[in-house]
């Protein structure tokens, strides 16, 4: 058994460090912080979890990169395989959506973006995925982009959505990670993180 004796390059911002410190108080041990820490890392690393991000999470939680990688790869929302585009468009193709026109939505999106499910547009703007049930079946067919659910989708809504996303100032992939981190934190914890972020600018 070998253990790396080198500290990995640490990229967490002061805000992220403060957030992680707060999260540690929510659980009786550091291992339980792995999932929320991965959300912080996904935000800090631009919407993606490269090996360096896994190594940083492992280092900060005194776990091994192998363990953290094992956890990260289990969950579909952690982007460990490839760096996604700026925005990820996820189309539910599951039961109700399937009988309510999901395949038509997939076809429209594939045509308009010029890519197939699973691919990213050459300009790096959009990644398109088919996903399992988003559990908003009353609005079938449903599409998720970051923290937004859209449905019932039709061509007009697709066009409006793509237009808005093209002009969106922040990557929805990164924003999603941030929103998820924020819901974990109590009011005073969010304030501490804000102050940590401010102290850098000062």
């Amino acid at each position, binding site marked *: 058994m070998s253990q790396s004796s080198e500290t990995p390059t640490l990229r967490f911002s002061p805000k992220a460090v403060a957030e992680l410190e707060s999260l540690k108080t929510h659980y009786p041990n550091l291992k339980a912080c*792995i999932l*929320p820490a991965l959300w912080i890392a996904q935000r800090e690393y631009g919407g993606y979890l490269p090996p360096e991000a896994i190594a940083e999470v492992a280092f900060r939680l005194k776990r091994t990169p192998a363990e953290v990688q094992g956890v990260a790869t289990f*969950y579909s929302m952690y982007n460990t395989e490839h760096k996604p585009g700026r925005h990820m468009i996820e189309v539910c193709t599951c*039961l*109700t959506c399937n009988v309510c026109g999901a395949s038509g939505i997939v076809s429209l999106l594939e045509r308009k973006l010029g890519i197939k499910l699973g691919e990213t547009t050459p300009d790096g703007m959009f990644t398109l995925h088919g996903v399992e049930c988003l559990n908003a*079946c*009353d609005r079938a067919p449903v599409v998720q982009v970051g923290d937004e659910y859209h449905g019932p989708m039709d061509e007009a809504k697709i066009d409006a959505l793509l237009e808005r996303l093209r002009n969106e100032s922040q990557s929805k992939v990164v924003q999603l990670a941030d929103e*998820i981190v924020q819901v974990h934190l*109590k009011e005073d914890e969010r304030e501490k993180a804000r102050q940590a972020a401010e102290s850098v600018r000062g």
Partner: protein
Amino acid sequence: MGECKLLLRHSGDPAYATLEGYQQRGGYEGLRKALAMDRQQVIDEVKTSGLRGRGGAGFPAWIKWNGLPKQKTKPHYIICNADEGEPGTFKDKQLMETCPFLIVEGMTIAAYATQADVGYIYIRGEFVDAARSMRRAIDEAYRAGLLGKNILGTGMDFDLHIHTGAGSYECGEESALMSSLMGERGMPRLKFPHAPLPTISGLWDSPTLINNVETYACAPFILANGGAWYANIGASTKNSRGTKIFSVSGHVNKPGNYEVEFGTPLMELLDLAGGVKGGALKACVPGGSSVPILNAEACQKAIIGYEEMMEVGSMVGSGGCMFLNEHTSIVDFIWRTSMFYKEESCGKCTPCREGTRWMFLILDRVRSGQGRMEDLQLLEDVCRQIDGRSFCGLGDAAAWPVAGALKVFRHEFEDFIRSGRSHAAKV
């Protein structure tokens, strides 16, 4: 019988998601009454109410609440399973987004009854709106002294955290959820009787109560009005008490969440959802993708109740109710169902990991026109190899819909194989 808005009564009123609005509409009356009782009395009220778990299993809630040790030697935990992932189900989403305080109050009542110090709401990662809503409510509750130290001046301490998932249906399974909460891959753990119940040893080897969102949301009403009052609702059924929220979707005119009294006929639920759309009713999956499919004839007979649904060959399950019209290919529908389970199988045990994959491959072959008559027997054999033999309920949940469809719509599968295509009525 019929629609009975208890949990969802104020769902359309944005003020209900604020502490002031919630309290004006009776909120926190339940907790105040609970705190004035012995813990055992609180559990007795839940027992009298007849409340059964609303996540899908329908297990009597009081047995869990009563299961944590009365002599406390370790921290006690409570978990709200908000990983709503059962296809067709979206009731917990609405509850969290529009009635967040029902869940906070319900969990606080449960925490009092079980002497829990810390609670976690495990919310699936996709449900950001729901998580934000719960966050706002929890923040308000802390500010008002309804969470944290010395709740309502009674000396009760209870800390409530939000913990999100990251994309995994299996994490809705109790033991897999606990694995995930503890920082692991979402794989299930050995269960009773081979291992202690979670109420004895759950999170971090400590006594843990875990219930569904809707189950906790019922608690404020039970404590405010009494278990006997609650047990009066649904009393026409064998053993199903109170109301159940059904998420109705598919080929209906008004898809949405509808809360009904147990004992309501399934067809009345269909009426509430505006009736079937685009053609005659062909089939219904009444309780989430895992439950056996009903044909139109069975739908006519079906009454909503845990035992009553089993009489027509299906289940209440999560209440995720999908209605399908005559233009639906059942083969296609079951093919997509099998794909879901194949994708979501955690991979831990052979019957499920291999079985869900083979069911999908066989159905894929049938759907692409390459099916053989022997495939139907083969599918049934695979179902039998999974059902009751997998490490957790996902295996059963994958086998039941396939076996069920082959029983009820066998002719459709046979026609499809013979001709290589669907014979569902053309639009």
